[in-house]
């Protein structure tokens, strides 16, 4: 009874939120340069990106078109590695001057004490750092022998701040699926309060490496691990919003699955393209800040994002869960867009082993 009520209520909420499409969360792909060369990179970034960083003034001109930004509006700096920009503090302060919040996704390599302090002083309110396993498996995925040590230092630094809304994210793959308990323990020891787990979908550089993708059984192990971990009080563990997970909804997250790309989440990409999340197929671009008024595009375009009936195709055609799933995370629709790349719901059904906590 409660589950049914919850589902109905949440569907109503989604409908209302979609109609309202209030922009709360804006990614800014401020650089595509990166100091790492990760095996799973969805952006296919490189150290010597030929694409220039977007000038701050160009980005500010775009966000200045937003009429009455929501009170919880946040700009999320992403890349590439944002810390490679030498004007981040200025970027942050300009965003704060406009009454908006800002945050950053980082690989943590350049996040030292001095940078931590200058970011906080410039008004950074949230931070996410990636840790992809214990030392060997993290360094393997990050393709760098010193990465683990640097990232753990950065994590301890960020976790010690009473100001930051800080979390660690982990890409779960074949190499680290059996280390999750160890990782959890090391994060708790480092003072981390929030840990988000996600899987890797076959886009960008990840396509070529089969070690990265979990089997269906391993995916269910992951769901059970998160379910068990959520009973702990030391750390808040959750599955990312990457996909609909059927019976595990509300067991692995605080709220039901809702892909908000193009509904509450937008992005300004390195070339000025306007889209949903940065990991969404770039052909979904809705306009460009160098040609269009950003606010006009947000208000009047994004039709494919806000009406997802067109995703009833491929394996979604006759799926009984479509009303709650709506074609899974939007980033799962690439290239010809004839079928969903990954169906997490299907994975939860295909398990053939007894479910065991890791």
């Amino acid at each position, binding site marked *: 009874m409660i589950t049914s009520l919850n589902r109905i209520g949440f569907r109503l909420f989604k409908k209302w939120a979609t109609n309202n499409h209030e922009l709360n969360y804006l990614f800014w792909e401020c650089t595509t340069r990166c100091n790492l060369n990760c095996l799973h990179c969805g952006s296919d970034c490189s150290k010597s990106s030929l694409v220039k960083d977007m000038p701050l003034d160009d980005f500010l001109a775009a966000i200045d078109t937003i009429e009455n930004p929501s009170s919880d509006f946040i700009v999320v700096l992403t890349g590439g590695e944002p810390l490679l920009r030498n004007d981040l503090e200025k970027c942050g302060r300009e965003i704060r001057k406009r009454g908006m919040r800002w945050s950053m996704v980082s690989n943590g390599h350049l996040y030292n004490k001095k940078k931590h302090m200058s970011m906080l002083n410039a008004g950074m*309110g949230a931070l*996410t750092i990636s840790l992809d396993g214990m030392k060997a498996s993290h360094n393997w995925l990050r393709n760098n022998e010193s990465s683990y040590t640097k990232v753990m230092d950065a994590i301890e630094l960020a976790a010690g701040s009473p100001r930051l809304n*800080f979390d660690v994210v982990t890409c779960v793959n074949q190499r680290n699926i059996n280390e999750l308990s160890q990782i959890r323990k090391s994060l708790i020891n480092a003072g981390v309060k929030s840990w988000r787990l996600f899987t890797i979908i076959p886009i960008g550089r990840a396509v070529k490496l089969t070690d990265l993708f979990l089997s269906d059984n391993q995916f269910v192990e992951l769901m059970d691990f998160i379910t068990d971990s959520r009973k702990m009080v030391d750390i808040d563990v959750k599955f990312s919003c990457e996909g609909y997970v059927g019976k595990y909804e509300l067991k692995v997250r605080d709220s039901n699955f*809702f892909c908000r790309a193009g509904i509450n*989440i937008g992005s300004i990409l390195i070339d000025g393209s306007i889209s949903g999340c940065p*990991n969404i197929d770039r052909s979904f671009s809705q306009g460009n800040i160098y040609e269009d008024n950003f606010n006009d595009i947000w208000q009047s375009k994004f039709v494919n994002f806000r009406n997802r009936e067109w995703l009833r195709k491929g394996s979604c055609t006759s799926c009984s869960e479509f009303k709650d799933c709506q074609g899974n995370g939007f980033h799962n629709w690439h290239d010809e867009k004839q079928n969903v790349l990954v169906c997490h719901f299907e994975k939860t059904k295909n398990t053939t082993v007894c479910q065991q906590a890791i």
Partner: protein
Amino acid sequence: MKNKLIRKIIGGLSLTSVLFVFQACYGTPQDFEPDFRIEGQVKSKSTGLPIEGIKVSIVDYMQYEFTNDKGEFSIYTVINNDMRISFEDLDSTNNGSFLNRDTLLTNIQDNIYLDIKLESK
């Protein structure tokens, strides 16, 4: 106002209080923490000239910044009822030599500007 009311009704129906808190798959958490900006300028009491290199610290939060060549500083920090700000001259005799000073801020509601004058040693 209408939006807020609808938010409450839908939130109640779905029996969850976290509908409006979210983060993108590859993004960061949102930030709802109330904070404020404390900024100002540090000058010499005797000459009136700005002092560079003074360490300005929010004592309880271990947050600090050094004044620039115009004696200016600007720090975003969490709101607290009482907040002690310290001003320390740590660079020996560079830019002069000044006595340290503490300032207690109370009942902070909004951004604040401080005009600080340090006495010479």
